Each structure stands twice: as structure tokens, then as C-alpha cells.
């Protein structure tokens, strides 16, 4: 297939090419930088910004691990600790995990469907600036000791007018508005791009799985985010103008908040996980040198996860004393969602089984994803059972579970995706051996950090405590977890070094260094301003047969 795209590029005259580039590139200079609307410029900025927030969130996590490394540690007081864990959760959920996958979508979806820019490019730029200013706002307030301190879930009445300290919860609620508007804007762009701007010949059953994952995620965002915007706006109204949505003494209902929050909060997990599965499908298919096994089953799994994802939120609320029958329904739904996840896992294994696997860095991250995510999925099934949930809810067992799911299910594939698409974005390959070192440091560090947390949770260590008494006997495992966290950090430093080095000096990549079959590889690396000088076509022969 490499002959096809090359001929597309050569068949256009130099004059036409120059005119195309002029039309589609961003204006030069600082003004041009500010007014950029090309999806690749915005996408790159989005990815880099999200990674900066990932590093900040990681630093906060490392600080927490230092504080918890030994019992009764005097390093940080409860006030700052509460700010730190709230900032960590808020950063990772709202400023890193959701935006980074949307950013990949902004960069890749137009290329994968063979078009020249994302739909509504100005809205796209607006979304980026809104997100950036939201993030800066949050960190400026944190630096001024006004960072939110009521958890990333901000349960009232603790976050309400009576108990929320100073402007801290307002800062949180305002940030939510910034990031959610940004996310909603991208969702609309992705859906329109995927449904209206596809290259001729790309029928629905030929859309790459990654694009399907982005589309399904976008729909989830459109249905989930309004719930949290409604909730956070009501919270701000409670705090600033004295409404009574969540204040019990005035007839408000704190449980209403929990329902609204988790109606967003649980789908949020899948909003992060589904695009990551799109990356896994892409990498598994490319590095097994064959089309994915069970394309239809995988796409239907994504769609059914999206629907079911809206029916499990109450498993975050089992301890509130809801009726047993209702709780049982949510147990069944929470267990059921393991089925479509299982379908995908089996399809990926079948793809490798029947393919010819080459073990490059992206594939290594996918293997890591399998190991870690399957553990997280299984503890998820355990947590769905009410009696077990009531014991381990709000303990370190849950902390372990969702880091296995979110780091395993999202960050591992994301790193894989970075190694995979880096040559497309920069025109240079990342250093393979550094990638392998990054993987092993991060993988071992991750398991050292989070596996002991399962045990800590089972031994009764609650979440969100800034200290614990020595006689509880939790010290050794906590110290181990802290050591693991620093191994992970070392891995991330190797990654940063790899990015910085490869960006300037990495091996120059060909247009399609992995011999992949999706359309983004059918143009130059990095793609020119107009992506495809000639309109790209998708035909069945593009699917690799040998």
C-alpha cells in the first residue's frame, strides 16, 4: 500500500502544492501562533499541555507518597494534604486523562478519516484556550493556597456554603465549567468530523477502530458532562447566591449531588478508557500484521460499554444506605460491563494468536496494559458485590483498583500510542531502547506502588487520610508503595528525555514506519498543512492481506 499514497503526493503540481499549504497553514509569527486553527497545531499543543498537567499531578502524587511513607509523618499538615489530593484527582481526571485522549482525537481523527482539518476548527481552538486557562487558573489558585480541598468529588455539605473554606470549592466548581465546555466542544467536532468529513469509500464498517472509539467517547461526553456542569453550577449558586440545592437544613439534598456527580463520574471512567482501547486495537492490529479479529464485535462492545456505563453510577454510593433491591440492580449492571470488556480482550488475544507479532515499544506497552488492566478489571468485579464493597469502599483497595484500571487501562496504552504516533507527529522515531527502559521502570514501579495498596485496603487503611498511627502496622507496605512511586517517576523522566532527544535527533521516520493500514500513514511524516494534497480514498484493498 505504500505505493498508493506516494503517487497521491507526486501527482500534484508544485504550484498547487504551495497554494494548498498557504491556505491550510497557520499564519506566521506570534500572531499566527495565537490564531492557529489547524487541527495538528491545536492537537499538538493539547497533547503537550495535558502531559504538563500529568507531570504536575504526578508531582502531587509523589508528595502524598512521601507523606504516607511512614506513620505519623510530620511532613505535611492535613490542610495542605487535603488540597494536594484534591488537586491530584482533579488534575488527573479533568486536566490530563480526558483532555489527552481528546487531544489525540483532535490530531488523529481528521487524518484517519482522510480529511484536511477537523470540523469547526475555530471552536477547536476556543476549546484549547478555555482548557488552558482553566488549568492555569486552578494552579494559580493552588499556589496562592486557595486550591480546592474537598476531594475531586466535592461532596456537599463539606463543599457547601457552610463548611467549604474560603473560595476553595468555588475554584473547583469554576474549573469544572472550563474543562467541561472544552470537552463538549471537542466531542461535537469529532462526531461531525467522523460522520460528515470521511474520505470517499470509507463506509461505516471501514472506519478505523480508534475513530469509532473517539466517536463513542464523544457521545458519552455529550450525555455525561451536562450532569456535572449542572451539579457544579448548582453548587456555586448555593455558595454564592444562597440557593438550597444541597443544604439539608434548608430542605436541600446532599444525596442529589452524589447522584448527579456519579451519573457523570462513572461514565467518565469509560470516557477515559474507551479511547485507550482504540489505541490498543490499533497497535495490536499493526504489530500483529493483520486486521483486527472481530472488528464488528469490538465496535459493538464499545457502543454497549457506552450505554451500560450510564447504568452503574450507584456502585459508588452503596454505603449511603440505598434500598437493597436497587443496589442489587447496580451490582448486576456493574458485573455485566465486564462482558464487553472481555470481548475486546479476547479479540485482541485472537489477533495476536493468528498474526505475526513484532515486539516493538508500542506493543510492549500493550502487553503491560493487558497484565495491569485485567487485574483492575477483576478487582472491579469484586467491588461490584455489595457485601465486599461495603468493606473495602473508601479504602486503599479502591485506590489500588482504580489506578490499575486507569493507569493500566489508559496510561499504558497512551504511552504505547505516544511511541506509535510520535514518528507521524514529529517525523522522527522514538529511541527504542529508552522506550523499553521506560516501560520496565514504569511497569515495575507501578506494581510496587499499587499492588500493596490492595493489601492495605483489606487491612483497613482508609483513603484520604494524611496520616495513620504507627500501631496499625501499615508502615512497611506504605514505604514499599512510596519506593515504587519513585521508580515510576524515574520511568517518566526517561520518557521525557526520550521525547526531547528523539524530537531533535531521533532516527528519521518514513511515511509509514510501522507498515500500518490506517490513513494517517498514507501521508507524509509529519503531515503537511493540508494533510492530504489529493483527497484521500479508502478502498478495501487498503486492508493489508499479506
Amino acid at each position: 500500500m505504500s505505493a498508493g499514497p506516494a503517487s497521491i503526493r507526486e501527482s500534484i503540481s508544485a504550484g498547487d502544492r504551495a497554494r494548498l499549504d498557504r491556505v491550510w497553514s497557520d499564519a506566521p509569527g506570534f500572531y499566527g501562533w495565537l490564531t492557529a486553527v489547524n487541527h495538528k497545531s491545536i492537537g499538538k499543543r493539547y497533547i503537550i499541555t495535558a502531559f504538563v498537567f500529568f507531570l504536575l499531578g504526578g508531582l502531587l502524587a509523589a508528595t502524598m507518597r512521601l507523606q504516607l511513607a511512614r506513620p505519623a509523618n510530620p511532613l505535611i499538615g492535613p490542610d495542605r494534604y487535603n488540597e494536594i489530593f484534591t488537586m491530584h484527582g482533579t488534575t488527573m481526571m479533568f486536566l490530563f486523562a480526558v483532555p489527552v485522549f481528546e487531544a489525540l482525537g483532535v490530531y488523529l481523527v481528521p487524518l484517519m478519516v482522510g480529511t484536511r482539518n477537523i470540523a469547526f476548527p475555530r471552536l477547536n481552538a476556543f476549546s484549547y484556550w478555555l482548557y488552558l486557562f482553566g488549568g492555569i487558573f486552578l494552579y494559580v489558585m493552588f499556589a496562592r493556597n486557595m486550591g480546592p480541598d474537598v476531594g475531586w468529588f466535592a461532596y456537599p455539605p463539606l463543599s457547601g456554603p457552610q463548611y467549604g473554606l474560603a473560595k476553595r470549592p468555588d475554584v473547583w466548581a469554576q474549573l469544572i465549567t472550563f474543562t467541561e465546555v472544552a470537552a463538549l466542544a471537542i466531542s461535537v467536532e469529532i462526531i461531525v468530523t467522523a460522520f460528515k468529513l470521511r474520505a470517499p469509500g470509507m463506509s461505516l464498517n471501514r472506519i478505523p477502530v480508534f475513530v469509532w472509539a473517539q466517536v463513542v467517547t464523544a457521545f458519552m461526553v455529550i450525555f455525561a458532562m451536562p450532569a456535572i456542569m449542572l451539579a457544579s453550577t448548582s453548587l456555586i449558586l448555593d455558595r454564592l447566591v444562597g440557593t438550597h440545592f444541597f443544604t439539608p437544613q434548608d430542605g436541600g439534598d446532599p444525596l442529589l449531588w452524589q447522584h448527579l456527580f456519579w451519573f457523570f463520574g462513572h461514565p467518565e471512567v469509560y470516557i477515559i478508557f474507551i479511547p485507550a482501547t482504540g489505541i490498543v486495537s490499533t497497535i495490536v492490529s499493526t504489530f500483529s500484521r493483520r486486521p483486527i479479529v472481530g472488528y464488528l464485535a469490538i465496535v459493538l462492545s464499545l457502543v454497549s460499554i457506552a450505554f451500560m456505563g450510564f447504568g452503574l453510577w450507584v456502585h459508588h454510593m452503596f454505603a449511603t444506605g440505598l434500598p437493597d433491591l436497587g443496589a442489587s440492580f447496580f451490582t448486576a449492571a456493574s458485573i455485566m460491563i465486564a462482558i464487553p470488556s472481555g470481548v475486546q480482550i479476547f479479540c485482541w488475544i485472537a489477533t495476536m494468536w493468528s498474526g505475526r507479532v513484532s515486539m516493538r515499544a508500542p506493543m510492549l506497552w500493550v502487553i503491560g496494559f493487558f497484565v495491569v488492566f485485567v487485574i483492575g478489571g477483576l478487582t472491579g468485579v469484586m467491588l461490584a458485590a455489595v457485601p465486599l464493597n461495603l468493606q473495602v469502599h473508601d479504602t486503599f483497595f479502591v485506590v489500588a483498583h482504580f489506578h490499575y484500571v486507569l493507569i493500566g487501562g489508559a496510561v499504558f496504552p497512551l504511552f504505547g500510542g505516544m511511541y506509535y504516533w510520535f514518528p507521524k507527529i514529529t517525523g522522527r522515531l522514538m529511541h527504542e531502547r529508552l522506550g523499553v527502559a521506560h516501560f520496565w521502570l514504569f511497569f515495575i514501579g507501578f506494581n510496587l506502588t499499587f499492588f500493596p495498596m490492595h493489601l492495605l485496603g483489606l487491612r483497613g487503611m482508609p483513603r484520604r487520610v494524611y496520616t495513620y498511627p504507627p500501631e496499625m502496622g501499615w508502615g512497611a507496605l506504605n514505604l514499599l508503595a512510596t519506593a515504587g512511586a519513585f521508580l515510576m517517576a524515574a520511568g517518566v523522566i526517561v520518557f521525557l528525555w526520550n521525547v526531547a532527544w528523539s524530537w531533535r535527533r531521533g532516527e528519521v521516520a518514513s511515511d509509514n514506519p510501522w507498515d500500518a493500514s490506517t490513513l494517517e500513514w498514507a501521508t507524509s511524516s509529519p503531515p503537511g498543512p493540508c494533510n492530504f494534497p489529493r483527497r484521500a480514498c479508502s478502498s478495501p484493498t487498503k486492508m493489508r492481506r499479506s
Partner: protein
Amino acid sequence: MLIVCTVVFVLVMGALTVALVRGRRSRLPATDAAADSRLHTAVGIAVTATIVVLFGLLIASFITQRAVESLHASSAVTIDIIGHQWWWEAHYEDAQPDRRATTANEIHIPVGRPIVLKLTSRDVIHSFWVPSLDGKRDLIPGYTTAIWMQADRPGVYRGQCAEFCGRRHANMAPFVTAEHEDQFDRWLASQRAASRAPSTEAERHGQQVFLTSSCALCHTIRGTSASATVGPDLTHIASRGSLAAGTLANTREHMARWIEDPHVNKPLNQMPPNSLAGGDLNALVAYLESLR
């Protein structure tokens, strides 16, 4: 459940390993129709097995839930627990008002009898959790929730607030002492009684300090004129093992330090520091430590 999950993990990892080994060895990907249909069958079988296992787990979960929730009995001891930032208020219910008892942070229960805890909160959401005795139940302002538990062996069980409730969330530990029925009855009777009258000069002086300083604005000592309900009931404070919801062991020295500056050991809690003359402080501690 753990066993089932471990087996599933091992099976999936096994399949992954075999797939990788096969995939690395094979020269050409097998993509003909027959191979694809074999793969589809394999995936179908794996999914079916998954569904069967999940159904098994679902039913096991329901059966356990029924067993845990069906501890209802008519002879239950009912205790009202009210959550505060950052301590637990406890009332033993009784039809006769003079047989009710009030205490804080440490409750006693009889072994082998079901206990029902009726839970609510005065400020923010807390969650009552004694890992060895029961699961969690949230204390939500405006709601009353309930949870059943039963201790089969005597002992002192440490608990923990399990819902993030602000700055002192880490220092909010309830203690449950499970003891034999007769011991429990004696304990309850002593808790019902009004406070012990001061017997020495120092204790009498201490009582005066208590009643005339800011202490009485927040605390109750039944049998005296102090009847405020902002802080914990101190009628039988000396009978408790710890101060400030499990923060300090209940000794004279800790008590004195705590009264002088509660923020040394539990920073940012809601009790204000008190500057008392040395003699007054000693007398106050002597009085409080006499309230068995």
C-alpha cells in the same frame, strides 16, 4: 471470589503468553476465512465462559448480601450515632427516658446480640466503619441510615471514619468494646447515671473551673449545670480509653495538654485553646479524671 478471579487472571495471561509466543514464531499471519471463523468460535467460547463465571459471582454476591442484611432480631440493642466534625456522639435508646445513656467515640456492645446503629450527621457526611464488625454506612445530614452488626468475640475493635469529612478526617476513630452481657449491663448502668460528685478539694475546685470557664459553653456533664451539646458529653470521660476520637490515650498528662492547646495533637480541630492558670488546669484535670 479471590480464587475465581485468580484463576481467570492466570487463564487470560496464559492465553496472552501462548498468543505472543505463537505470534512471534509464525511466519505469515493466518487471515483466511477458515482461520478467522475458528478464531471467532474461540472468542465466542471465551465470552460464554466469562458470562457463566460472572453469573456465578453475581449469585454468590446476592446470597452473601442477604446473609449480611438479614441479621434482624427483636432483641437488638439500638444505638443512635451522630457524626460531628470530628467525633462521634452516641445515644443508647430506651423507651424510658431515664434509662437512656449518652457517650462519645467509644461504645460498648454485648457479645452475641445484634446491634442496630441508627446513623445521622449534624454537619457534613461521615461514614461509620469498624472493619472487623461491619461494612460502612454513611452518616448523611438530613437522613437517618441504619446498619446491623454483631460481635461474636469479646474485644476492643477500632473503627475509622470512612467518608472524607474535612481536615481531621484521619483522626476520627470510633472504638467498639464487645463484652459479655453482664459486663455490658453494668457498663450501661454506670453510663446512665449522672456524674460523680467531686470528693476532694482539688476536684471541687476543678468543677468550679469547668462551670465558670468556656468549657461549659460546649460540653455537658450531667448532674451539673453544664448542658451544652456542641462538643462530646463528658459525664463519664474518665471511663473512656482515649481522648479526641482515638487521637491520644486518656491520661492526666494528655488531658492537660489537650485542654491547653488541642491543636498540638489534632491541628485545626474545632476546640479552642484555653489559657488557664496552672493551679486551675491541674484542678480541672483532677476533676475530669475523676468522672468514671
